[in-house]
C-alpha cells in the first residue's frame, strides 16, 4: 500500500493511502471556523487539521461540546478528553437545536458507507430496509448535519461497493438529483446548508461542479485514473486541470503516527 515519493523539500517518508487521505482531508479545512466532527475518519482528519492548517478552528462534537481541545485522539466521539478544557458543554438538545439547526456550523464532516455522484449518503442499510444484507449504524446526527451545516465534507475509502450509481437508502441528502433540484429544495425549505462541497478518498479529492455532481480535482500520488474508474459505479467527471495531491509532510505524518493514531486504528 505504501508508496515512496519525493517531498516538497528533501525526501519524504513513505506513507499509506489512508494517511494520504487523512492529510488531504485535513488540509481542506484550512480557513474554516466551526467544524462539526463526525465519528470515525472525520475524527482524525479534523484533529489533524486543528494541529496544522486550522489551529483556531472550533471543534463541535454532537455529544454536546463546543470548542473542544482533545489532548488525545478519542476512539469514540464521546470521550472525557473532549470535555476537559473545552469552551462549553451543553445538552444535546441545545447542541442540535441552537448550534446546528441554528446555523452556527460552517463544516459538517461526515463518513459514509455508500455515496452517489451527487453526494447523497447512505449509512443505514445495505440491501432492502426491512431485511437488510448489512445493518449499518443509521443516521446518528448525519441527516441533520447534512441539512443544517453550511457545507459538508466527506471522507471515505473508494470502492465499487461504496461509490455507487444508486445508494440503497438515503440517510443524508446531498445534491439530490442534481444542482438544480437541490438549489430549489434548499431555497423552498429554507435549509441553511449548501450541501456537499468535497469528498476526500484514499485515491483523490472530489469537489462538486455546477451540475451538482462530484468532479475529481486531485489524484493522490500512486493512484491512477483506471483505479478511480474501477472503484465507482458511474462514469466520473474528471477535472481538465486534474493535479496530483501534494504528498504528506513529515510533520503531518509525525502527528498522525505519534500523536493521533499511535495504534494505527485509522491508518492500517
Amino acid at each position, binding site marked *: 500500500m505504501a508508496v515512496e515519493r519525493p517531498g516538497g523539500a528533501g525526501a519524504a517518508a513513505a506513507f499509506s493511502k489512508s494517511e494520504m487521505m487523512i492529510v488531504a482531508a485535513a488540509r481542506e479545512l484550512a480557513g474554516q471556523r466551526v467544524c462539526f466532527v463526525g*465519528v*470515525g475518519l472525520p*475524527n482524525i482528519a479534523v484533529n489533524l487539521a486543528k494541529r496544522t492548517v486550522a489551529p483556531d478552528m472550533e471543534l463541535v462534537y*454532537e*455529544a*454536546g*461540546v463546543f470548542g473542544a481541545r482533545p489532548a488525545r485522539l*478519542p*476512539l*469514540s*466521539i*464521546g*470521550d*472525557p478528553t473532549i*470535555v*476537559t*478544557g473545552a469552551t462549553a*458543554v*451543553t*445538552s*444535546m*438538545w441545545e447542541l*442540535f*437545536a441552537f448550534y*446546528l*439547526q441554528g446555523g452556527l456550523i460552517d463544516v459538517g464532516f461526515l463518513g459514509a458507507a455508500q455515496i452517489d455522484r451527487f453526494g447523497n449518503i447512505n449509512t*443505514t442499510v445495505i440491501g432492502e*430496509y*426491512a*431485511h*437488510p*444484507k*448489512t*445493518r*449499518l*449504524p*443509521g*443516521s*446518528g*446526527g*448525519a*441527516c*441533520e448535519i447534512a*441539512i*443544517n451545516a453550511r457545507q459538508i465534507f466527506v471522507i471515505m475509502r473508494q470502492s465499487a461497493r461504496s461509490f455507487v450509481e444508486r445508494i440503497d*437508502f*438515503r*440517510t*443524508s*441528502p446531498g445534491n*439530490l438529483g442534481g444542482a438544480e433540484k437541490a438549489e430549489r*429544495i434548499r431555497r*423552498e*425549505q*429554507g*435549509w441553511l446548508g449548501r450541501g456537499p462541497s468535497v469528498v476526500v478518498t484514499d485515491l483523490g479529492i472530489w469537489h462538486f461542479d455546477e451540475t451538482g455532481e462530484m468532479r475529481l480535482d486531485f489524484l493522490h500520488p500512486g493512484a491512477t485514473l483506471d483505479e478511480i474508474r474501477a472503484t465507482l459505479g458511474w462514469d466520473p467527471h474528471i477535472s481538465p486541470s486534474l493535479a496530483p495531491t501534494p504528498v504528506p509532510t513529515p510533520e503531518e505524518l509525525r502527528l498522525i503516527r505519534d500523536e493521533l493514531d499511535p495504534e494505527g*486504528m485509522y491508518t492500517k
Partner: protein
Amino acid sequence: MSSSKVATMRDAVGALVRDGDTVAIEGFTHLISFAAGHEIIRQRRRDLVLARMTPDVIYDQMVAAGVARKLIFSWLGNPGVGGLHAIRRVTEGADTSLELEEYSHFGMVARYAAGAANLPFMPLRSYFETDLPVANPLIRLIESPYGDGTVYAVPPLKPDVTVIHAQRADAAGNTQVWGLLGCQKEAAFAADRVIVVVEELVDEAVIRADPNRTIVPGIVVDAVVVEPWGAHPSYVQGRYDRDNRFYRDWDAISRDPAATDQWLRDWVYDLDGRAAYAEKLGDERLRALLPSGPAPSGVVDYGEYR
C-alpha cells in the same frame, strides 16, 4: 427533608422494571449504566422495548441475553470500533426478529423533549429528502401555521423507566452531572419511573451548594442506587476513563454467539452485582482507568442573602 430513596440495584430493578416496559438507559457515550443493564439481564426481564440514542455495547449485551423485543434508536454501533454483532444477528437477512424504530440523533432528543414537556409532537428541520420518514411512518410532516412551509415532527417518547448514571446524588434523588449531559434530563423528565445510579451519595448540602449543577430533581426520581464503577466500560468524567479496550474486545466476543453467551455467564449471571464485577476486573485494570491528573472546576460564589 424527603425520605431516602436509596436502594440496592437488585431491589430497584426488581421493583421498577417490568416485563414489556419501554426502558431507556440513557447517557451519550458518558455515564452509561452498564450496572443497571446487567441487573435487568440477571433478573431475566422479557419483551422490553429498549430506547437509547446509541444502543452501544450495553444494548448489544441485553439483546444477546434475550430481554428485548424492540429497539428505538438513532445510531446503532460500537463507536470507533464497528457494528453491534448480537443486534446485527437479529436484524439482518431473513431473520429480523428484533423490531427497529429509527430516528436521527436530534429526532430522538426531540422525542424525549416532547415527552418531558407533555407535547403531542416536536418540530425539527431534519428528514427532508431522506428515506427516514418512509422507513419510519411516525416521522411526519407538519405545516407551519405562519404560512412559511413545512417541517417534520416526531412524537413524544415517554419511557416507563429511565435509568441514568451520575457522579452524585443525595438520598432524595437530587442529581448532579458534569461533563457530557446527553439527553438524560429530557429522558428522566419524560419517564414514568426513574432510577438514578451514582458513583457517590452526597449530603443534601453538597447539592444545595451548587443548584445550577443539578440536572434531575428528586421529585422525578424513584430510586437512588450507589454503584461505584457502575458505568464501566463507559466512563464518568473526573472519575474514570472510557475502557476502550473493552469496546474493542467486545467486537470479537459478540461476533461469536457462544463466546457472547460465555461472557454473559462469566460477567453477568455468575456475579451477584457490580461490586463483584469490579473485583473481577481487578485493581490493575481499574487503576489504569483513573484520570492522569485532576482538572478542578474552580469555585463560584452564590452569596448568602438574609
